[in-house]
């Protein structure tokens, strides 16, 4: 991914991510998050993770976020009232966030000084075939466990919602 592409994707990502947490309306937040997800899918395409890119769209943008939107609309949520918020918590959170981002940026930029060149990509990197092969050999047990987790989550969600 060249620098131009990077910034073309990174800038909207950060902007829409900021909208997610700043917009008072939950629907706009959710829609911004959909946009973030879609841009991330694009980002994944450029990082040679084709399969993951599509999954990002289908799973995150297409399913999870629809679920969020569904709940928002079911509860008919209006704009977030801001009055009762503890001021000390807000201040502390802002300071904490600033420190965290400073630390992360410092950490990552420092690690870049000892950066090696990107490795050569093997044949079929990020394709369905390569991903599936790994998934059903090296990662078979985690895969099965994840499937059970999904089943449990489905049952749990039904039980909770039916109560």
């Amino acid at each position, binding site marked *: 991914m060249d620098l131009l592409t990077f910034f073309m994707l990174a800038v909207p990502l950060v902007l829409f991510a900021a909208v997610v947490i700043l917009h008072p309306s939950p629907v706009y937040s959710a829609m911004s998050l959909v946009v973030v997800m879609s841009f991330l899918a694009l980002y994944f395409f450029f990082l040679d993770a084709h399969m993951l890119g599509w999954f990002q769209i289908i799973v995150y943008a297409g399913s999870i976020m629809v679920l969020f939107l569904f709940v928002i609309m079911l509860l008919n949520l209006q704009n977030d009232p801001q009055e009762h918020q503890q001021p000390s*918590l807000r201040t*502390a*959170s802002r300071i*904490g966030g600033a420190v*965290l981002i400073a*630390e*992360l940026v*410092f*950490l990552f930029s*420092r690690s870049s000084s000892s950066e090696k060149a990107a490795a050569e990509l093997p044949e079929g990197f990020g394709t369905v075939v390569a991903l599936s092969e790994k998934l059903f050999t090296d990662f078979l047990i985690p895969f099965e466990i994840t499937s059970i987790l999904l089943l449990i989550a489905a049952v749990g969600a039904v039980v909770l919602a039916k109560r």
Partner: protein
Amino acid sequence: MEHAHATAQALSLSLSVSYLRYIPLFPLLGVLFNIFLGHRLGRKAVNIVSPGMVFLSFLVSLHAFWNLPEGGRLVDTMWLWISSGTLHVDFALQVDQLSAMMILVVTGVGFLIHVYSTGYMAHDHDVARYFAYLNLFTASMLLLVLGENLLLLFVGWEGVGLCSYLLIGFWYTDDEKASAGKKAFIVNRVGDAGFLLGLFLLFWTLGESNVWTLSFSTIQQHIAAVPAEVATVICLLLFVGAAGKSAQIPLYVWLPDAMAGPTPVSALIHAATMVTAGIYMIARLNFLYALSPTALSVVATVGAATAFFAATIGLVQTDIKKVLAYSTVSQLGYMFLALGVGAYTAGVFHLMTHAFFKALLFLGAGSVIHGMSDEQDITKMGGLKSKMPVTFWTFFIACLAIAGVPGLSGFFSKDLILEEAYASPLGSPMLWLVGTIGAGMTAFYMFRLLFVTFFGENRASHEVQHHIHESPASMTVPLAILAVLSIVGGYFPLLHFLSPLFGEHHEPHVAPLIKYLPTVVGLGGIALAYVMYVLNPAIADNMARGLSAFHKLLFNKYYIDEIYDAVIVRPIVGMSNWLWKVWDAIVIDGTVNGAAHTMEANGSLLRLWQNGNVQNYALSFLIGAMAILGYYLW
């Protein structure tokens, strides 16, 4: 040791058999029968099954006795009992000469007492429970004497202790009798503590030389590994146990109180069998005691002191069973005296003859009590000779035997003990003297008892007099059999029979004075009793008045119970109270509650953090993450 050769030979000859297990098994079956079926099938079934089971044991014991190899032993190893590391303890029974004699006495006398009990307990409604206890006792006692190792002996030891407690408190609705049972149990626990410590010390000492065993034969093989001074400590600790079980100073106090139980129980447990467990144990471990002359002299001294001390109390008691109880304590003292001077054979010999005549005395006393409508005070008896002839004559024979009248069993065994006490390398004239005086007193108080009970005018109320009757055949037949045994018991070749264990018996050479004086003193005691209680009863009253302080002291048993109460019981109760009210309630509870209060105080500070706002918790996360990141960056 002089009999080292003989013991080595005994070890070499052990025959494996598999029928010894039936000896304790039959009484155990009786226990099960009595517990589960006794009440349903009724008195008759119980009266047949319970003695029958003991009789079967007796038959098996006889079989074992006849099959006992010359100078060897029978062993029945049932299963591996404990296996832990290098420790292997077999559940094994053995019969050697000592055990053979013991099981014959236990099952034989035990059978007679069972039969007697069917008559004595004929009017008690809880006869099944009684026989369950009695059978359990028999089984435990057999386990004690048959056990091939110290651990099995200890199981039997505790078993007979339990049964003793249960039987003393048999009529548990009576507070006094229930507390007598508790007293017996607690005093025995003191002895058992010593026994256990001795056992551990022995085990540990042998273990130091890599002998992890408790089997008697193996202990005997490796006895050289025990240093003499350790042996002394072990022997003294074991003797504490023996003193508890066999009612020696200072742990004898429970035995007189144990008379609260049914009289056949007193005969079986507190005269013939259980109380001899201590003697049996020391005789069994003679090779260990042989290592420690010090311990032996302690045993002899305590034995002699007990013999004398209990006899003095017996002189003035008026309760027929109390007299017999102190007599028992006294006679047990003689046995320990014999053991203490190294005359194991004599001690065991006296054990056997004593079992016969003391069981007879108790059963006779039971017969009297039965006939007198449960009256035990001899001052309210008298003149029973004509009304209960069988009881009188058998009682008379027993008194002759215990008084040491020549020709009867007691004469042989007691004389032998006194001669050994004088002549044995460990003996001394002092021990002989004390024993001889005690023998005189024994004769005196036994005949005092006889005369006051059976001669003169009956002093009971008219109502009671009307009911006086001879006991049924189930009671008188055992009396007769025991009377025969009391006469002929002294002629059994026991001294030779026991020689493989204790070495060949050599008649001690003593001066004629020493040899015959105890007999003379005994006859003198009889004569004195005759003069004081038959010819001129006023003398006794005058003496009691003239020596009233002394009489009072004896009558109140030297106030030993009161002293124990003041010196031991009250401090313990006081300390327990202190422990309860101060240590437990204030210190321990205070610590625990204080810890809880401290936690609560700290918690109430910390829970300010727990304000329920998820975002505050998330902020804590963030701070933690920042800290970790900062640590790695720094």
